[in-house]
């Protein structure tokens, strides 16, 4: 265990009574004394503070923004060149087979692209960019922590520390001053709630976290509630709901591929697996990621096989993420199901401990998103 990496907030987590677990090579808080259910509910009603410093923060820089954006568009099938300054966008790296290598957030920061990638993939992602991109430098930011402040109280809490936070809209990014720290703040997150992600110098991370936690409305939230919050919000977890064997159309992420990168767009294709992905966009695919609502109380977790009827033999899909949704008040799941069985309202059966239990294909998200658009 001693070879686990620590984030700059590690000692604070321990002080706050967190249960620490290994995650993507880091020692991370899975829950605090409030517990997963209490943390989840608190974040939906007030605000939660998450340590996401294990994620990769990367600066891609060229002669100008367009150089860096054009380079990244050779690896990522989204409109990066057309992203306005100080705006953020969701994207993903694709592979030659059309699969997804990792998902990420991109921001236009004037003279560079700021990229945030998953902890478990960051070494591979940075190697991939470094090897494939010409005329740009790829720099991992290792001296900054990343915090997330999420929930309906987030705006009030953060704007009390820097009033400019209130002027930001969903997917804006700005440099603010939070508790004396130069903070790169985006109005985004991974909970379905309004909120911010806040990058601050590592040595000031504890001061910033304490300043946020000092507000009565803010509780620290661990990885356990982070997972149930994102699942209720219908947000994908890389490695579960999408992976290198699933293309973006199958993963129901076509909304993230802007028209300009599709067939007949001004910058159509030009990314790994483009032929497969563009064909999938036109012709459709044989399977889709969907929301699934188990009818009983029993959670159906990752790996539960899905069938068309209570006694059919051929498996038609599987659960990719599942658990109890505290705000829904019952089990929720996402899964991959065969084409024609993916329409909302379709009843399927999951096999759990030898029994077939019904679940219904359900539109995502399970709870309405609460973004400030």
């Amino acid at each position, binding site marked *: 265990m001693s070879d686990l990496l620590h984030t700059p907030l590690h000692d604070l987590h321990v002080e706050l009574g967190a249960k620490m677990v290994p995650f993507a090579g880091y020692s991370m808080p899975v829950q605090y004394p409030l517990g*997963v*259910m209490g943390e989840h509910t608190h974040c939906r009603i007030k605000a939660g503070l998450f340590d996401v410093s294990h994620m990769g923060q990367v600066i891609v820089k060229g002669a100008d923004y367009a150089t860096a954006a054009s380079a990244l568009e050779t690896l990522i099938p989204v409109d990066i060149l057309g992203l306005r300054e100080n705006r953020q966008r969701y994207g993903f790296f694709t592979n030659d087979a059309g699969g997804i290598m990792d998902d990420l957030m991109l921001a236009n920061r004037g003279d560079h692209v700021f990229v945030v990638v998953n902890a478990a993939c960051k070494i591979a992602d940075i190697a991939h960019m470094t090897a494939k991109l010409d005329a740009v430098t790829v720099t991992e930011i290792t001296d900054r922590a990343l915090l997330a402040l999420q929930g309906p109280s987030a705006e009030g809490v953060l704007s009390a520390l820097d009033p400019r936070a209130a002027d930001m809209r969903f997917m804006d990014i700005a440099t603010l001053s939070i508790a004396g720290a130069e903070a790169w703040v985006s109005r985004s997150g991974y909970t379905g709630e309004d909120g911010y992600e806040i990058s601050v110098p590592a040595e000031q991370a504890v001061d910033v976290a304490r300043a946020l936690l000092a507000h009565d409305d803010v509780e620290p939230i661990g990885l*356990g509630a982070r997972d*149930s919050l994102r699942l209720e919000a219908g947000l994908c977890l890389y490695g579960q709901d999408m992976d290198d064997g699933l293309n973006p159309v199958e993963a129901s992420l076509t909304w993230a591929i802007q028209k300009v990168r599709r067939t007949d767009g001004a910058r159509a294709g030009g990314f790994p697996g483009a032929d497969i992905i563009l064909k999938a966009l036109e012709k459709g695919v044989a399977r889709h990621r969907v929301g699934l609502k188990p009818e009983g*109380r*029993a*959670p159906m977790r990752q790996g539960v096989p899905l069938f068309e009827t209570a006694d059919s033999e051929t498996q038609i899909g599987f659960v990719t993420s599942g658990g*109890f949704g*505290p705000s829904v008040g019952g089990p929720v799941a996402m899964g991959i199901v065969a084409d024609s069985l993916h329409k909302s309202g379709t009843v399927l059966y999951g096999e759990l401990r030898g029994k077939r239990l019904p679940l219904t294909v359900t539109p995502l998200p399970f709870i309405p998103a609460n973004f400030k658009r």
Partner: protein
Amino acid sequence: MKYTEEHEWLRAEDDLIVVGITEHATTQLGDIVFVELPEVGMTVVKDEEIVVIESVKAASDIMAPIDGEIVEVNDALTDNPSLANEDAIGGGWFFKIKPSDPSQMDNMMDEAAYNKLIA
């Protein structure tokens, strides 16, 4: 009250034994969100898996602590699984069993021995 190494408690109630899991166990499991209880009338054998518990973290099985027949289950727990967290040794009981060999309980831990186990 008697205790097993699987963190179950057993309490005699007339000629029946009431079974649940300890506060220590529910704290370790975290918030319990689903409990599947055995059927009334079922004959069970010691160490047979007869209850499924799901917490926000994972699923776990609870085994029959002794041989016998299930004579009652706690339906309130099925409707409100958090009872197991809130009142582990009271309202959060799982089932009542009519033991076929009460001597199976003789070697189980008493409270002092159990507290030592979890210390």
